[in-house]
């Protein structure tokens, strides 16, 4: 199998590290070689953050480079646009349709782009979901990233059972049920 390149992008504090832990466990359970690369430290404080996950037979470098991502998972739509050029020509976008203003927008130094979803759709097959609204309906807004992951799961190489098993063993014990429900919502979202 050719190495699969996944990118998870978002705003620091949105839980990209939890997501990458889940993807790492899935790959190791499926006996793939796997490498992940994360951002720790200052950039996590509300900055733009990116996590790379690569799995396959033999993985050399830990990063996904421009033009190579098979799946771009974005927890915020401006961040999807920022990393759009990392996708392969036939790469797929999974985007949480949420807007978080960067400080440059808050201070008026820049404007938040309009029509991001249209731009994404014109360039690549794009699946969008308002995961925050779905997570709030479930009663725990923090589960929104698992909703997004549920949608992304349709574009990776693992069975639904694999996903449920790994999520159950990764999220805090008290939140297993609600996170599994969150995953179902994403998984079933067309």
């Amino acid at each position: 199998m050719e190495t699969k390149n996944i990118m998870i992008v978002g705003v620091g504090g949105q839980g990209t590290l939890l997501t990458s832990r889940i993807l790492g466990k899935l790959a190791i359970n499926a006996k793939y070689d796997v490498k992940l690369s994360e951002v720790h430290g200052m950039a996590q404080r509300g900055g733009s953050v990116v996590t790379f996950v690569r799995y396959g037979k033999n993985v050399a470098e830990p990063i996904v480079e421009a033009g190579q991502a098979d799946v771009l998972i974005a927890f915020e739509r401006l961040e999807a646009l920022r990393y759009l050029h990392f996708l392969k020509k036939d790469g797929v976008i999974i985007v949480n349709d949420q807007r978080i203003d960067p400080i440059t927008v808050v201070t008026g130094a820049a404007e938040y782009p309009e029509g991001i979803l249209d731009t994404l759709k014109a360039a690549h097959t794009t699946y969008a979901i308002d995961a925050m609204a779905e997570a709030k309906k479930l009663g725990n807004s923090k589960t929104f990233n698992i909703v997004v992951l549920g949608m992304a799961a349709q574009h990776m190489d693992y069975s639904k059972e694999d996903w449920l098993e790994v999520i159950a063993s990764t999220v805090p014990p008290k939140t297993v049920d609600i996170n599994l429900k969150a995953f179902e919502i994403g998984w079933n979202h067309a």
Partner: protein
Amino acid sequence: MENQAILLGNEAIARGAYEAGVKVSAAYPGTPSTEISENIVKYKEIYSEWSPNEKVAMEVAIGASISGVRAMASMKHVGVNVAADPLYTISYSGVNGGLVLVAADDPGMYSSQNEQDTRCVARAAQVPVLEPSDSQDAKDFIKFAFEMSEKYDTPVIVRTTTRLAHSQGLVELCERKEIEDKPYERNIQKYVMMPAMAQKRHLVVEARTKAMIEDGCTFPINKVEYNDLSVGFITSGIPYTYVKEAMPNASVLKLGMVNPLPRKLIEEFASKVDTLYIFEELDPVIEEQVKSWGIKCIGKEIFTIQGEYSANMIRKAVLKEDLDLATPATVPARPPILCPGCPHRSVYSVLSKLKIHAAGDIGCYTLGALAPLSVVDTTVCMGSSISTLHGMEKAKGKDYIKNWVAVIGDSTFMHTGVNSLMNMVYNKGTGTVMILDNSITGMTGHQDHAGTGKTLMGEPTNAISNYNLCKTLGIEHVYEVDAFNIKELEEVIKRETQREEISVIITKAPCVLLKGNVFPNKCVADPEKCKKCGMCLKPGCPALTKQPDGTIRIDDTMCNGCGLCRQLCKFDAIKEVPVNGN
């Protein structure tokens, strides 16, 4: 493979220390090295601590080594500067139990103030450097480093980079090898570096380096991979993986030891390949030496001296491939910011209102340099705020600094700020020092320090009080103020900056992300009462957005209910409501 795990580079380093039989580990947190100690503490066989700074950490490890056990110190690259004093001299003394320093460089400066290359420090200190390429290497190289340290009687640096430290990869786990303590024998020729002894030890160091240059040619960590001989790469660390990705058929000399260089091995490799590239991030350390031996090679002519490398860099510069990449979209930047509910924002909102300049320091609060707060004017290194302000006063006089303060975090104050404060007391400074005490080392992700009352190993301990410490130094005017009480803060800052005597203002409120820190309320805006004045937006809280009609909306998933915006609103248009009270 039963004993396989997926480990972060830093986790693998910790595992390596465990397997190598390390007994003592000391460190000061610093991205990208912090997780080493956070993982070492999971191994009960190792004593581990957060020291107040890297110099102390290095010396703790040195003491443990001299006493006869394997010891490790970990720090980020700029921490090595702080630890440089003991490092340069322990290089002369050598070791008893194995001594390893893990130094984490930050190409691309993801979380650092400079991009210095630890290999240059190591060359000056005449200390060998090993550089792993992935998590498996990281574990293996730590173990090899301890063997080398004892065999060659030298401290050994294992150099990592952000990309290695924060990447995960598969690692084979092994058992811990218990190492018997070496007997301690008094030996002042080796452990007391007075001139007469040091002169003799310098010769030992030179001989040791020569031996490693020879022996390095057969070290298993230096690997030659002959493939297509028309192109050869000499590389190390993470860049090795980029070579394998972009040109899997090229010949490669992967150097596990990057200082000193195994000259014969390099000369032999160079003689066998037609075109030789040196592919190393940051400074041309390998390249300049190889060129000085009269070997033709290509390096910084086509590869940058700045930032991280990539496989695409090789595809473009060596293979001349047209990568046909999409142009990145033009989008607003998203720099890091203070979190919603961060006590620093509250303090800075007051300084900003009073138009006070701050000599800044290293921590989350450095972000106060950026708009809209724009309070911090200078940031150099850990602990520099207080001494920088003192220097300004001595240059320009007391009046000049009446609209200045020094701002420093609680952990940074313990690190090296306290020395600067002593200087200010001793040399009759009149500056105003603000210790932004959020009860933790914040930016690196919540590590305890000498003021928190808890050790790295989770034991309760004496918490050094900043207030008492300042008082003990003989400072009369020391005040503790709630960081979120902006009215009181304003009064105290106004008064103390005008005072022609040294004063310390300790602002207190725990980091908003600190575990167990519960904010019972959230802030809610009332669009009916909102006069669209924008006062609440001034501190730049990310939970607040201006609606198209000019009123304010507060995002309930982001707001932590600190109440700063409520205090700033003159029209009672923001209310704090209980989180679960609807």
